[in-house]
């Protein structure tokens, strides 16, 4: 539990030590965006029982930062384009065009990272605090699920391949 909690930009969460190594953060920002108050109290992972901790902390930590970071870059791209348009240099600024090309795949990456945050971050729960993933598994046998997943992958590849 922490007041004026910082928003960490970099770092490596170490579950065993119970700390984020090499953390670089913006002081008070996490309190501001989570509680809308610079002095707000933010609950940390250490305020929940250890048995409910996700086992893949760096994955959750980093996919969240990739998602947010790309989002900020997208906003920066938009603002830069407005600025250049206002200055009448939108079609001349080479650096901006390189930036725009480089941002091409950002949407797909950000969506995938965001999906990873929700799906791995909610573990070990399916419904937070109520239903554990292990208890919500369907009675369908594993080979059937694996076969159907493989079949869907093949069918999508065929259909998608034919459509190109």
């Amino acid at each position, binding site marked *: 539990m922490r007041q004026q909690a910082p928003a960490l930009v970099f770092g490596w969460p170490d579950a065993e030590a119970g700390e984020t190594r090499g953390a670089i953060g913006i002081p008070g920002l996490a309190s501001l965006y989570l509680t809308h108050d610079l002095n707000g109290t933010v609950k940390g992972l250490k305020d929940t029982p250890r048995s409910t901790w996700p086992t893949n902390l760096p994955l959750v930590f980093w996919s969240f930062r990739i998602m947010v970071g790309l989002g900020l870059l997208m906003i920066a791209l938009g603002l830069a384009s407005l600025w250049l348009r206002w200055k009448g240099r939108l079609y001349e600024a080479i650096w901006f065009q390189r930036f725009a090309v480089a941002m091409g795949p950002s949407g797909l990456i950000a969506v995938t990272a965001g999906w990873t945050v929700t799906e791995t971050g909610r573990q070990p729960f399916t419904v937070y605090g109520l239903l554990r993933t292990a208890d919500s598994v*369907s*009675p*369908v*046998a594993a*080979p*059937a699920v694996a076969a*159907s997943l493989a*079949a*869907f992958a093949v*069918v999508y590849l065929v*259909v998608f391949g*034919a*459509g190109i």
Partner: protein
Amino acid sequence: MDIDLTLVWAILIATSVFLYVVMDGFDLGVGILFPAIREKARRDVMVNTVAPVWDGNETWLILSGGGLLAVFPLAYATRLPSLYIPLILMLLALVFRGVTFEMRFRIISRLSQTAWDSAFSAGSFVAAFCQGICLGPRVQGVRVEGRAYAGGWWDWLSPFTILTGLALVAGYGLLGTCWLIWKTEGELQIRTYRLARAFGMATFAAIAVVSLAMPFLSLTFRERWLTWPAMAFVAPVPILVGLLGWRLRNALDQREEVMPFLCGLGLFLLSYVRLAISLFPMIVPPSVTIWDAATHPSSQRFLLVGTVVLLPMILGYTAYVYWLFQGKVTAGAPGYH
């Protein structure tokens, strides 16, 4: 007056399933007929008769599945795992078939023409067959322990489910031919009159065999068919089916255009209502009733509000599309694509 919300929902979902069966039934049926009609121009006409409506028809499958999940979660959680393989196969078949509508009109080589035509007809056949398989466990029962499916992943496979699978292929084929009789003209229509006779005979044979097998496979069916008041409806069914068959044969002989399709719908309605009455109030035979499987009353009320808004919209646009694309589909005329 107290309204039994659960009963209202059971009737809504049963209606939705029925609408799916007859509507996607005839357009799957058109695909099932592909091996019998091989000329490209005729196949184009066949596909054009269903192209504007087929995806709207599949709305009812989504509504049935979504409704079952939301209102009868226990039924969803036990019935779907028991039918995992046929349902997945059905979905994959529908993927191929659905894509074909877009692909057929953009292909240039003979090879891809053959490939997509095969995808259309095989997809239709497999989807229909798998849906028929799903009927089997409605009669034979599903193994449920506690609140979970307790059977294996091959439980759905039995001689009876193969029979119901083939029966539905025959029935959809009949609906498909009757639809084409209504929507086409000339040589293609004459061919479909002949096909309708063959699929009609196959459908009646299938209804007879499935009906004879039912009381031997299920105690519930045997009891229902021999006790009042269910007997009052079930007993006249064979006579009504016979009358419909006679009317269908007449309609085909007299070259009537709309009546064969109506007879086909009547056959499906009779078979469906008989199945519903034989099962009621079981939603997962032999042990789970609609009231056991239903979600909390407040959820049922909440969902009903949304449905009361959505259902008229779906019915409205469906009616509009059928009205807009009424009349005969002719070869070479600018179609839907």
